[in-house]
């Protein structure tokens, strides 16, 4: 018995389309999760106490339950509360919510790590609150949390595989189906692992480039 990757390779156009779905869903969900995570962290820090407690509960519930179960409940349980979503929108929403909880914790630590004196210095030269957020807080925090952001984005990349349970036509679903149709599971799974690994290496490399560019901005003293 020998492995024959050509059986899987013959379905190349299908695989390419699944590859593309994985990439764009990952990128869009990651961007939305970063934005939502930032808003959650900012509201927890600067909003009223009740909102902080409510959002803390949100973060803890999301972080405390498996993504698989969250996604299952969203897609199959959603219609019971009037939320019927197609697979791709449900997948995007699920990943955004899941990722936002982790990103918000990264940003929370980032907010806490900015020395208060940097904000006082900005107040002293007359920057308004909005200008302080835009010109000081966000750029400083970006450089502080970038490594963790890249790390979380890589985790999210691999989590896209779970979208297969709600029939999102991404890599795992499509390549897995080809494997079962052709009785070539090992070949399909090996290829899948290579695909994900390549994507993770690529995103890690891009993240590394960004970190290198920001390395000059490290904190002084």
């Amino acid at each position, binding site marked *: 018995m020998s492995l024959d990757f050509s059986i899987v390779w013959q379905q190349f156009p299908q695989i390419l389309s699944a590859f593309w779905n994985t990439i764009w869903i990952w990128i869009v969900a990651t961007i939305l999760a970063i934005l939502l995570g930032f808003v959650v962290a900012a509201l927890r820090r600067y909003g009223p106490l009740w909102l902080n407690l409510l959002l803390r509960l949100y973060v803890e519930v999301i972080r405390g339950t498996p993504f698989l179960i969250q996604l299952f409940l969203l897609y199959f349980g959603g219609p019971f509360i009037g939320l019927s979503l197609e697979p791709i929108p449900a997948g995007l929403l699920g990943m955004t919510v899941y990722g936002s909880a982790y990103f918000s914790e990264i940003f929370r630590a980032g907010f806490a790590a900015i*020395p208060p004196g940097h904000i006082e*210095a*900005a107040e*002293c*030269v*007359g*920057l308004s609150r909005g200008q302080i957020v835009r010109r000081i807080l966000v750029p400083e925090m970006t450089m502080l949390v970038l490594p963790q952001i890249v790390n979380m984005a890589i985790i999210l990349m691999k989590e896209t595989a779970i979208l297969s349970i709600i029939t999102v036509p991404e890599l795992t679903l499509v390549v897995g189906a080809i494997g079962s149709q052709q009785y070539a599971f090992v070949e399909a799974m090996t290829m899948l692992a290579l695909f994900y690994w390549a994507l993770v290496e690529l995103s890690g490399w891009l993240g590394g480039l960004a970190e290198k560019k*920001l390395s000059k*901005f490290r904190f002084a003293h």
Partner: protein
Amino acid sequence: MTRPAVRIRDVHKSFGSTEVLKGIELSVPKGSTTCLLGPSGSGKSTLLRCIAFLEETSSGIIEIDGDPLGFAEAGEGRRTRLSASDIRRVRAKIGMVFQQFNLWPHMTALGNVTEALVTVQGMKRSAANEIGNRQLARVGLSDRGHHYPSELSGGQQQRVAIARALALSPDILLFDEPTASLDPELTGEVLNVMRELAETGMTLVIVTHEIGFAASVGQKIAFLDHGKLLLDGPPAEIFGTPRHPRLEQFLETYLDRGAATLV
């Protein structure tokens, strides 16, 4: 008699139940260098931060060149809070230099100096850079404009912070222990810049432990202890004999540590 640059009237400040400033009365003459001295916890940094409006006083009035800062008198010992635009207008007369420099690490030295010119005053980048380069030259760093704070020594960072404050042409420059985070060999370069500023006739208010500097550059010494202004006068009077016993005790601890070269 001209209006004082800063006038502090019966200022109290509490953090929770701890009263840190207990009825401070002080006036800072225009064009003078005033040094605030005192042991740790005496309230001198809090007083300076109140003048910068980084802390709000609990009661009393602070006037900057005759204009009330933050709060105005409303009769019968009460006071009203001024509008945000009034506060901004008065605060614009003040520049602040911190112990920890507080440069923004994601901007170059020039970027730090020009940030407020561009973002707050809406100045064109080229005009702001011209001012920025001039101020950096003034503190002896004309060749360091494109360096990030992490690429500069502590003394250079503090001089950039001084240039950042100067770029906005404040009437009054406040220093909160500007050399306390520096190695002794880097202290001199910062003190020299401050000495030059004092000679130009700018109003400086300096919280410092550099007693020798205070005695030689300061025209006025204010000695605080336990939230009260204990002594207030020219250095010759304050440091001349006979000295106040509390000051004597304070100076001894400094001389014991060999930190002061007292005149």
